[in-house]
């Protein structure tokens, strides 16, 4: 394989696809940590010129981890629709970019092409996209899903109500949950990250949230984001489970460090279909994020964007209700500052949509990264404009258990009013019936959690 170009009279040659893909990325601390980042801005530009000429079939033939060594590669490769693939395999990455952006290319057409793509093709085209390309491209692709309600319809923006608490106190969680509901957060899921992963604590939170859903007849689903093995035990023991959650990684080795495998996820998915209480047909919820494979030394030398794209291919297998990147969650070693976090957020959302999964985003940062609340508000506006399915709702965006900051109950309300977006239709109806929202705008009753003490 010869991968070479001249740029401003200087020759740049890239030894293989792995290095080319790394060097074509926007600057990211995680790629520098992995030793695959471009040394100079000119080298980055050169890498992109070369990548733009690579045909898609070459990317299919060179997955980040070989087929025989990695079950994530196998899941993605085995799912490729050969008819679709044959139509596009000779496109170059540059041509693919232009096709995606063309006015004649509709969302429906893109959803079809998705079935012929592998993660490496999706990653490659993403590297050639500017930020606005990523927003515009993603905005064409609507991916909706149904569980107890419908997420991801055009013109809607949903919110995960995330009432986390440092010691999982049901009382404290309930108070936060009510606050969020009173702002219209909770149409994606009522989803708690537990501090205690034990069966007894997790099942208690499932019972409590289910009770709130039933009492107030909320068209939504609950989830406690414990390790999937704990949730499986809960399902088997009869706990009321809405969505089944797991963090996933872009390689088999990475997933092993998360204590999971494709077999285990298959089993969880089958149990979900057997035991989850909502209508369905989608019951799975996944979270991802650039850097997790490298963190587990499971990236096989590849850049974090490509490893991230592989997550979405894996997620697609389970026809999930929702998937979100937790962009900026781990820390500055992978995404150094606001600029890198914003870029990665746009990339991940675009890649998820291009894969064909109902993609949302936890737009966030940690206190050891160089970012602030303004940066995350900016990202949320950009993503909402790009058609992002949902964001997180946390009291004032400050998660007192996970120790990071993200989007708030207020942010979802403001984004909806700013960009004329609505909650999921069933949820909006519910809000209207309680007098919390009228014509898409919060009423005077909204923002008062004590409203929910009545029943």
């Amino acid at each position, binding site marked *: 394989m010869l991968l070479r170009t001249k740029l401003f009279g200087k020759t740049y040659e890239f030894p293989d696809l792995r290095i080319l893909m790394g060097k074509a990325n926007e600057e990211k601390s995680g790629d520098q940590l992995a030793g695959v980042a471009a040394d100079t801005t000119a080298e980055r530009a050169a890498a992109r010129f070369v990548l733009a000429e690579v045909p898609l079939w070459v990317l299919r033939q060179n997955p980040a981890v070989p087929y025989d060594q990695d079950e994530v590669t196998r899941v993605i490769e085995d799912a490729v629709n050969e008819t679709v693939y044959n139509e596009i395999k000779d496109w170059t990455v540059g041509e693919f970019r232009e096709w995606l952006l063309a006015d004649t290319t509709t969302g429906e057409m893109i959803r079809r092409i998705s079935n012929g793509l592998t993660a490496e093709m999706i990653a490659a085209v993403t590297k050639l996209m500017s930020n606005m390309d990523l927003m515009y491209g993603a905005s064409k692709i609507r991916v909706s899903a149904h569980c107890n309600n419908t997420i991801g319809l055009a013109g809607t923006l949903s919110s995960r109500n995330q009432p986390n608490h440092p010691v999982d106190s049901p009382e404290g969680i309930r108070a936060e949950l009510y606050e969020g509901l009173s702002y219209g957060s909770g149409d994606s899921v009522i989803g708690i990250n537990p501090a205690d992963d034990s069966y007894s604590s997790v099942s208690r939170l499932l019972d409590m949230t289910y009770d709130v859903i039933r009492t107030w007849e909320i068209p939504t689903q609950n989830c406690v984001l414990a390790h999937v093995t704990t949730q499986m035990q809960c399902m088997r023991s009869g706990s009321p489970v809405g969505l089944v959650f797991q963090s996933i990684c872009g390689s088999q080795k990475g997933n092993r460090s998360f204590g999971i495998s494709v077999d285990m996820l298959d089993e969880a998915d089958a149990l979900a279909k057997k035991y989850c209480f909502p209508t369905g047909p989608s019951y799975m919820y996944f979270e991802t994020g650039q850097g997790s494979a490298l963190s587990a030394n499971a990236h096989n030398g590849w850049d974090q964007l490509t490893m991230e794209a592989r997550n979405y291919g894996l997620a697609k297998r389970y026809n999930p209700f929702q998937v979100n990147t937790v962009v900026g969650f781990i820390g500055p070693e992978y995404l150094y500052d606001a600029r890198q976090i914003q870029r990665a957020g746009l990339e991940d959302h675009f890649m998820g949509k291009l894969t064909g999964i109902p993609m949302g985003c936890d737009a966030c940062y940690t206190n050891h990264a160089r970012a602030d609340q303004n940066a995350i508000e900016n990202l949320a506006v950009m993503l909402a404009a790009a058609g992002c399915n949902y964001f997180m709702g946390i009291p004032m965006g400050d998660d007192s258990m996970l120790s990071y900051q993200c989007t708030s109950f207020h942010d979802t309300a403001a984004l909806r009013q700013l960009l004329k977006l609505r909650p999921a239709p069933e949820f909006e109806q519910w809000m209207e019936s309680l007098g919390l929202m009228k014509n898409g705008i919060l009423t005077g009753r909204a923002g*008062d959690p004590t409203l929910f003490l009545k029943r």
Partner: protein
Amino acid sequence: MDEARLNAIVDAVVRELLALQPEQSAPPRAETPPAPQPQAAPQVQPAPAQPTRAAAFPAPVLAPLPAAPSAKPAQPAPPSGELRIDLPDPTEAQRRVQPGVARPVNPQALESMIASTTARIGVGRAGPRYRTTAQLLLQADHAVTQDALMRNVDPKLLDEFGLFTVQTRVTGGKQEYLLRPDLGRSLNDDSRRIIAEKCARGANLQVCVGDGLSAAAIEANLRQIFPVIRQGAQSAGLALGTPFYIQYCRVGVLNDIGELLNPDVVVLLIGERPGLGRAESMSAYMAFRPKAGDNDADRNVICNIFEGGGTNPLEAGAVVIQMAQNMIRHQASGVKLKLVGQ
């Protein structure tokens, strides 16, 4: 988890502790600049017993919020017309918990809801956005959190528990520590030698302390948790290894410790990443016979250890002992322990 047994251990250990060192029960304040005496402040009551934010930072306060955005100045202007703004500290605990909801259905219940969590609820709204004081407080907490990130653990505290210090492969200070987690997971050569020299091998329980992402967390909790672990181990009949402190530490360093000392169980007390306005949250990461190549699936964690809203460090110490016994009984940790335990 066997609650009766857990309570028994905690009780016993707490009783012993209190008998031994009655004066040491106050938590160390990691970084408490003298609270400015508010001059024209409404009376500041003693901090409430409910969870409060920021033991490691100046304490919180929400200035009373006007029900409607009227422009009442903090002080009536003197007759001369000269503007005088002289504010009480909005970060004091009492002020932080002041409700901001304009006309709540149930004002009393709102206060107890606010008291039930460290999260920022009952804050009200200005249209779909935050009220002014709440927003400014969020920004202030962010500022103070960032300032607290770069500190080292007070060496006096380490001396108190006879902890000697070793270091990972990080050589370029906190900045390098933040950007190179790989270096923070591996002990440097000197440290390996020192540990091999000074430490007992093959203990049942090896205790290590690491700065992680917050020195303040170690300073806030070590005096509480360490004696409980020590005495809990004794009453549970677990032989303790020689404890030490690891500078620039990541969780993955557990593997090196296991390889060097062959203990049954290693517990690493490590500072979690700091939350907004709170840096005192500590975790105990544990593994059964950790070795090279092990990963997070082979480990367990007890998290959010801090006083006043988190897992109390005394209780956490008892949970550590119980977890260690559990790991030894089942000869496993991590996801494997969960699966055999089911």
